[in-house]
């Protein structure tokens, strides 16, 4: 893991790391990755990955409207809205 890797990763995660912090972040993340690399030594041949502790399956419900429209409540806490829409900087010229 080097500076460029971290900056690429940060871009994927939509995070910005200041130039003077890149080294420290790289070091700390390398320490964590060294810890998790202990997993590579384990024989997991034939073991099924475990996604839910009780091996539960996704519950489905009937495709019916059950919730009222709460747009106004939800938009009341948004940083910027207009006419019921969320406002963001201009995307297309």
């Amino acid at each position, binding site marked *: 893991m080097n500076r460029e890797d971290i900056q690429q990763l940060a871009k994927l995660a939509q995070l910005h790391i200041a130039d003077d912090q890149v080294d420290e972040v790289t070091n700390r993340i390398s320490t964590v*990755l060294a810890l998790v690399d202990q997993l590579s030594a384990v024989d997991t041949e034939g073991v099924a990955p475990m*996604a839910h502790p009780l091996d539960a399956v996704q519950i489905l419900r009937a495709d019916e409207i059950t919730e009222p429209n709460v747009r106004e409540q939800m938009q009341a806490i948004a940083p910027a809205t207009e006419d019921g829409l969320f406002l963001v900087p201009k995307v297309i010229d």
Partner: protein
Amino acid sequence: MHNQTVAQLVKQLQSKAVSSVELTQHYLDRIQQNDADLNSFISVTAEQALAQAKAADVRLAQGNAPTLCGLPIAHKDIFCTQGVRTSCGSKMLDNFIAPYDATIVQNYQNQGVVSLGKTNMDEFAMGSSNETSYYGPVKNPWATHCVPGGSSGGSAAAVAARLAPAATATDTGGSIRQPAALCGISGLKPTYGRASRYGMIAFASSLDQAGLMAQTAEDIALLLGPLSGFDPKDSTSVDHPVDDYTRLLDKPLTGLRIGIPDEYFGEGLEASTEKCVREAIAQFEKLGATTKSIKLPHTSLSVPAYYVIAPAECSANLSRFDGVRYGYRCKNPQDLDDLYSRSRSEGFGDEVKRRILVGAYALSAGYYDAYYAKAQKARRLIKQDFVAAFHDVDLIMGPTSPSPAFEFGSKSADPVAMYLEDIYTIATNLAGLPGMSIPCGLVNGKPIGLQIIGNYFDEAQMLGVAHQYQQATHFHTLAPANYK
């Protein structure tokens, strides 16, 4: 009044020896007197609390009020509370007024339980010391130069300092049990899926579980019912009957088989902590239980597997914080990428950003099989260890944490040292088993916790066994000197 347990307080509320308004006001006064220093609350909702208390008194006067009616408790600031700031310990949500209640918050309200406010926590529940909170660290009421543990450090400190009789909390890798141990109180993380996660801000969805903190196991047994149950709004909650969690409180321990894992008493466990834990186990033998040593051979994989799975799930869950729909938005965004990137970079703290990056790496193209899939396989091996152990024993016991509360700053420079705080608690989350911590001694004036791990949905037995221990010992009655 504040040294009484939930069990004692609800009796007095029911008999009208004390009103909910009086009780609520008493705790609000205590918070006001003590919390400027401790910092265990992020928001105190005095006005709402007194209104809820008044309504509870009306129900109590009418008769047939639920057992918990009128009892004030605190909620960890990870649970959405309608009309009240729900910050999750983060600048990202400092301005977030939840538009709805979490299911468990609603459940307690339906019982007439009063909410005193929202407790401090590590940012997005990522930490074991409460030092990552945007609102500053919580102090340990037993030793104010030390951490209360985390992430539910605010709930633990509030209960320990008698600022609330009980509090809700969450546990993803030890976030209930470790602070309960470090603050000398009882804490329970139920079986994964036992409590609804609806309205509980997600960190690692396959590990997160809501639970409780109180002075005693009996108190948790009284409070656990409304926390439990299937919720159609949370597809990971489990449709399993809700037990009467008080039904085994008086059951003698004769014939109880306790497993003691060799792996929980190895290198890294401080000698004085081990001594307290071994004495507690001897007390269980005195009470009629038998103990045997067991093996959980994949224990050493717990921390590495957790630090793949938890960051991976956190990087996915925290992608929702984009500065568009709610939460923090940066000033003067230049374009959409700048809006996303600067809102997230300015809104999240360092530890949260590090975990997002580790998670993004573990899930990125070419690494998924080596990290996430591998960790999920290790997770099954860890679970199988427990399943095998529970063929021969009813419960498993060991230390909750390797040492008592540590000083502020002493582990923040090395993420791995901090992660090892949860070395005995993480496996339980990976396996989805219920775990609890109860106080079992003091070392240099700082509390030590005994961990009890039960089989799936065996909370009633765990609470009964803990209660029997607390009938024979006094550690759960000890309060920090300045907060008696």
